[in-house]
């Protein structure tokens, strides 16, 4: 080992990456590791990096520990837990100089397989397992738990915290609890005897976590659907959206059975394909249920025809799009924000759809619940635009809250009483000037309020019509309705720079957390930007004002073609040169490092300094 390199010394600020083999049972031990850090009051975030495969391929779990509370991906690795020989070389290469390599030293490796600027921590995990356990399955599973014990010694994680987590996880299964305790201690002792002392990376108890919770976006969104009053879910399995429906199913089983009869207040159907799943959602929405589907880009492509029908026939429906790398099958297990345009203008003909952009699991819950109110109020499809990073990774977020005084907004539904009272019913009649007509639900009244729903053009009273003027008036009303939507969707969130500045930066979705950190990094370099997080389409006027009041704005996106910029330029008739795109689309989670580097390089290149507004 080189004598010039000093081992990294960091407390509550480092990255640990686990390199595992898919299907080896490592996920449980890795999850325990992240939770133990949190239980010690130290903020942490975790990311799964995995292939489209069930067993045998490489998979990684990256944990960033940040006492300061930066929860985006940092990039780089300080401690690599290299449990997968297949990826040894690339895993080794990722370690920061002065960083650490933890590996199973049962089989001796030649010196050439290591680097001389990192510190090696070898523990003969397999040998210990073979000595302690007889069944191959036990040997495999407890090897994972054992490295958790070893890391506890090396990093200073309290054993009592791990014990409690294990007790929580296995509830009353005392045999399993004891077996896991044993494995943790075997690892802990092995590290003590092999390495001797804790390393320079250290977890120190803190109180920076507060009452925050640790959950992935799909689980949160599934719960949001329960709270939002969804009763019908039709879906087709597709990565990375599947676990959203699994979450909805689990929470429904817990929370949605009639206390007296035990019967279900919900219906979940796995359809034969995405065409059928959106068809069922449209049918249920037409018939008065709060219905949703969860899918990803390829599913959205298949649903196009129905989305045009739902837009034109004005049927409430909710779609969760957990975006992944496209086009085509693309990168099914990698993250992107590349379905913005295919959702905003989904289907043939002139259409515009409501999109919501949650920033994390907390907003996936909030927007998930809200989407049903919006869909029924606006009688149109609403897309909750998540991505794999939000959906499939556990994030540290504020706890969920529900305003008990809030009632569901079921929108404009004409009841039997209203019809009986002689109220004029025109299914596509704009009675309130907001572009939103009344609807009746099937079965409402024996003689009034029935109408024929169709995707062909019709007059305000739902009578078939091919008259150009009738068609056009209806299309204009749909535009008016879309303008109404702009006032109902979540407004953008603005973060003003500490100093007055002529430049702004726009972002949305999962870019939010790294952006928070990037802004702080840029500030330290004396680069000041006003920041705005866009939370929905149609855009609030505030978004256009923000762009107008700056000389130029950056727009950070996780796609190749600057899709949100296209949408902004198109809808707001904005001079494209006023928006500078910063695009990250290799499928990995965007980092603060990327954002601040890209911003800084462009600021320097454009020679705009200092970033101060000239007094006019």
């Amino acid at each position, binding site marked *: 080992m080189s004598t010039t390199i000093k081992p990294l010394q960091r407390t509550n600020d480092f990255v640990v990456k686990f390199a595992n083999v898919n299907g080896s049972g490592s996920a449980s031990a890795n999850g325990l590791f992240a939770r133990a850090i949190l239980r010690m009051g130290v903020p942490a975030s975790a990311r799964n990096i995995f292939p489209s495969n069930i067993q045998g391929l490489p998979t990684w779990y990256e944990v960033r520990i940040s006492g300061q509370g930066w929860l985006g991906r940092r990039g780089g690795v300080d401690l690599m837990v290299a449990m997968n020989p297949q990826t040894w070389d690339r895993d080794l290469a990722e370690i920061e100089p002065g960083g650490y390599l933890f590996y199973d030293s049962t089989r001796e490796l030649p010196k050439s397989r290591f680097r001389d600027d990192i510190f090696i921590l070898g523990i003969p995990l397999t040998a210990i397992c073979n000595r302690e356990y007889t069944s191959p399955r036990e040997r495999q599973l407890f090897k994972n738990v054992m490295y958790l014990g070893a890391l506890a010694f090396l990093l200073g994680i309290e054993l009592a915290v791990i014990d409690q987590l294990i007790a929580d996880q296995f509830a009353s299964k005392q045999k399993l609890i004891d077996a896991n305790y044993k494995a943790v201690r075997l690892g802990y002792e092995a590290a003590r005897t092999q390495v001797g002392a804790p390393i320079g990376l250290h977890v120190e108890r803190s109180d920076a976590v507060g009452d925050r919770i640790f959950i992935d976006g799909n689980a949160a969104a599934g719960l949001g659907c329960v709270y939002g009053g969804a*009763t019908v879910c039709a879906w087709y399995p597709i990565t990375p959206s599947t676990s959203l429906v699994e979450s909805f199913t689990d929470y429904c089983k817990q929370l949605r059975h009639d206390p007296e009869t035990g019967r279900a207040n919900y219906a979940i159907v796995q359809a034969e394909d995405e065409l*059928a799943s959106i068809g069922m959602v*449209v049918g249920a929405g037409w018939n008065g249920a709060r219905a949703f589907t969860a899918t990803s880009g390829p599913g959205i492509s298949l649903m196009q025809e129905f989305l045009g029908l739902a837009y034109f026939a004005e049927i409430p429906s909710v779609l969760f799009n957990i975006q992944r790398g496209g086009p085509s099958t693309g990168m099914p297990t990698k993250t992107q924000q590349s379905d913005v345009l295919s959702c905003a203008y989904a289907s043939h003909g002139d259409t515009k759809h409501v999109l919501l952009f949650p920033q994390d699991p907390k907003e996936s819950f909030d927007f998930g619940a809200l989407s049903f109110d919006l869909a029924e109020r606006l009688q149109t499809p609403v897309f909750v635009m998540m991505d794999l990073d939000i959906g499939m990774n556990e994030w540290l977020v504020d706890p969920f809250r529900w305003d008990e005084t809030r009632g569901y907004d079921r929108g404009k539904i004409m009841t039997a009483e209203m019809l009986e009272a002689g109220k004029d019913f025109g299914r596509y009649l704009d009675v309130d000037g907001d572009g939103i007509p009344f609807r009746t639900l099937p079965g409402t009244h024996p003689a009034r309020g*029935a109408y*024929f729903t169709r995707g062909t053009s019709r007059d305000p009273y739902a009578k078939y019509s091919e008259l150009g003027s009738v068609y056009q008036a209806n299309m204009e009303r749909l535009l008016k309705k879309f303008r109404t939507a702009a006032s109902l969707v979540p407004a953008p969130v603005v973060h003003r720079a500490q100093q007055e500045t002529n430049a702004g930066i726009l972002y949305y979705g999962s870019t939010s957390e790294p952006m928070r950190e990037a802004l702080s990094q840029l500030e330290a370099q004396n680069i000041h930007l006003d920041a705005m997080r866009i939370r929905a389409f149609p855009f609030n006027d505030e978004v256009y004002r923000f762009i107008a009041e700056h000389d130029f704005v950056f727009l950070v996106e996780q796609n190749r073609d600057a899709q949100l910029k296209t949408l902004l330029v198109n809808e707001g008739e904005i001079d494209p040169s006023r928006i500078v795109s910063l695009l990250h689309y290799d499928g990995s989670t965007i980092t603060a490092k990327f954002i601040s580097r890209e911003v800084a390089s462009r600021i320097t290149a454009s020679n705009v300094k200092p970033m101060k507004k000239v007094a006019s």
Partner: protein
Amino acid sequence: MTYLLKPKLHHPSLAPNALGYTRRDYEGAISTMCAGCGHDSISAALIQTCYELDMEPHRVAKLSGIGCSSKSPDYFLGNSHGFNTVHGRMPSVLTGANLANRDLLYLGISGDGDSASIGLGQFAHAMRRGVQMVYVVENNGVYGLTKGQFSATADKGSKSKGGVVNEDSAIDLCALALQMGATFVARSFSGDKGQLVPLLKAAFTHGGTAFIDVLSPCVTFNNHAGSTKSYDFVREHNDALNRLDIFFGKDEIVADYAPGSVTDVRQHDGSILRLHKLHDSYTPTDRIHAMRYLEERKALGQIVTGLLYMDATPNTLHDNLNTVEGALGILGDKALCPGQGNLDKINASLR
């Protein structure tokens, strides 16, 4: 089609049914089908069925896909909500509607292009799932709105109006429905209201997935010599299995048939289907027998009509999902929202 407006005044002697509705209350807008179209006869049969079953018109939801047949729901049950959906995708929309409100009666109207060509997948899966509905295919073997192309139910060797011979094998929707698990499968002919109306009544009271394939000749594009879906061809090759009467609790069952020639089947709602056998050996409660019989007769060039199969105690999608009574769509906040107390517990489990 007719160009005359329907008279608003009804004949005073028009008899009301038990609910006080006359036949007119079950009618819809004026048909825009070609004069003599089989589809109009099916609409008339549906009107008669609903009237005679004393159905509340607004308790029916009628859904269709795209095509001539799918336009027809506009022409009957004007006081029912209708939904003209997407080509070939009516089954999924109907399934969703049914999930939202199990209390309505669902009538799916489709065509052979809609169900056997573009929509074969959705047709098959809807039959599998036990969706409670009456699914009628108005089968003419041809695309009317696009002027006479073959559909997937056109028989191999049959000839189009322009003289083109169909070389592709035909899809038999009844055979498919049987295989997929439909619990009521029948075939009929638009020109035989005496057979069709009782079948529709039985289908509406069946309580499970009821499928009826109704041969419905296209007078404009598929009623010529060489067609196997013409009025003449269907009449000549019709192999009727049985005649059906349906009796409800209030009805007196009059036994005026020779012993052995009738079979009674009690449905889940207590109604009785009386089958007058036209073929001695046929048992419509034996699915495997039905499938074999259908194939055998098809090989002889015959069109088997009548009740092919029924399961008197069908299981439905809602049974399988164990959903609550009543419409899911009308459940309020109280039943649906678990509140902050439960959320606190969930939050606590995520720390």
